[in-house]
């Protein structure tokens, strides 16, 4: 029980950790972008033609992805698909699995946001001559994303943390680096403390970045109160004094 941590011995492996970190970062950046785009299109298809065969298949795929373990999805894509003649590199398999997983979860989140959009917004678009797609793209989508932004942000962070699993198919991400260093040095405690710390910082940075993006995209929500209201409270104060 008198274990003395020896962090300096990890120093030579810093480049491995940084390389792993970079892999995790680009995997996350790529798959959150693709995943959200996928969700936007999936919600559109299911809104446009809810009863079509394609929409129903999409719905089933979403349920499948939301109700099976991510690691099984990843293994299926990497180890299972070659049986069907589709061999993918580990990185490619990781990108596909993470994208599909995020798209499935975030499409359900976004769909709730779109469903919560008042009929009046669609009708205003229609009355102005917009096509349904134009109404979705230019009228409904942004407020729906805004409404659901906290949930979407969390889902993106969850996918980033969940990406640790791709080390299992030998994608050289941060966890892969940690495993490698641990097996070389047997410094399990140090390796995983440092790695956990790096994930934590990454998650914090990611949330900060997404919040910034949110403030930019959804500036319309963070407004000074309407002038009329300010006036009346001012008048009220004067009346009191």
């Amino acid at each position, binding site marked *: 029980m008198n274990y003395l941590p020896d962090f300096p011995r990890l120093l030579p492996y810093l480049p491995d950790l940084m390389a792993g970190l970079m892999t995790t970062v680009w995997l996350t950046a790529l798959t959150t972008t693709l995943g959200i785009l996928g969700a936007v299109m999936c919600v559109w298809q299911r809104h446009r033609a809810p009863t079509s065969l394609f929409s129903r298949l999409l719905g089933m795929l979403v349920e499948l992805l939301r109700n099976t373990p991510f690691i099984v999805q990843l293994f299926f894509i990497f180890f299972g698909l070659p049986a069907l003649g589709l061999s993918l590199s580990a990185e490619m398999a990781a990108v596909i699995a993470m994208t599909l997983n995020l798209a499935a979860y975030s499409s359900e989140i976004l769909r709730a946001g779109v469903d919560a959009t*008042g009929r009046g917004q669609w*009708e*205003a678009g229609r009355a*102005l001559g917009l096509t349904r797609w134009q109404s979705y793209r230019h009228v409904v989508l942004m407020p729906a994303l805004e409404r659901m932004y906290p949930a979407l942000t969390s889902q993106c962070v969850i996918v980033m943390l969940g990406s640790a699993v791709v080390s299992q198919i030998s994608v050289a991400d941060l966890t892969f680096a940690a495993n490698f260093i641990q097996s070389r040095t047997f410094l399990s405690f140090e390796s995983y403390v440092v790695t956990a710390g790096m994930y934590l910082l990454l998650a914090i940075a990611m949330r900060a970045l997404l919040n910034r993006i949110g403030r930019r995209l959804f500036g319309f929500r963070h407004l000074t109160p*309407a002038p009329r209201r300010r006036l009346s409270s001012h008048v009220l104060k004067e009346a009191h004094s």
Partner: protein
Amino acid sequence: MSLLAEVSALDSASSDAAVSEKAAVTESAPVSDSALDTESAKAPLVSLSALTKSFGDLPVLKGIDLEVRPGEVVSIIGRSGSGKSTLLRCINQLEQHDGGAIHVAGKLLDGSEMDAAALAQDVGMVFQSFNLFPHKRVGENVMLAPMLVKGVARDVAEREAREMLAKVGLGEKFDAWPSQLSGGQQQRVAIARALAMHPKVLLCDEITSALDPELVGDVLKVLEQLKREGMTLILVTHEMNFARDVGDRVIFMHQGRVHESGDPATLFANPATEELRQFLGAVL
């Protein structure tokens, strides 16, 4: 308010446009065009015949005949549930009618080959609940449809949007967010947004009902100005004074039919039917 100044500025602008238009006409196709113009000025802009519409088992419109001529201001009044909104919504095909015929600007609207983009350039609509796009600034709200639907270039759309906003007395609100405006201002933006498509007729469904009483006047003033400019208006309204003073004709709807219609002064003074008398007794 500088509405008066804006009106006169606008008047001179539109007469300029009229002059140049005339010049263009005389250059290209002189006689036949102007003959056509006077012809179409007489024809009804909106014409409904035997229009029917049901929601499931519930018949809501039971055979409506109505003709609205260019420049006319028609007020539709009637009890809640009598089908006023449904009638308006059929005219711009937010609802598909079941039977009868709707002609707008000479074109027959039959759900099948209806082109929303083309219809929106004939028929504009303003809603009770404004329905501004909350994530777009006031100016962008007005510019969106001309750019997307008509393919108008951004700078042209912006110039027009500023013009339309000035017309409704909100020239300085171009960069504001809708949520920063009062209800009356939001509704006037909604009118500007509809006008930016240059519709031939504007449908207004109780557009002052959601407003504080002191804001109603500003919106009605805009409607009056539109009438002076020759815009065709079909209004569902509870503003009986407005219907009487500004409207050319009043339609009283009752249980899905046009129960009574006519010149506002006569209709309000001497309702012919018991139903209208009761209705007026309740609202006046």
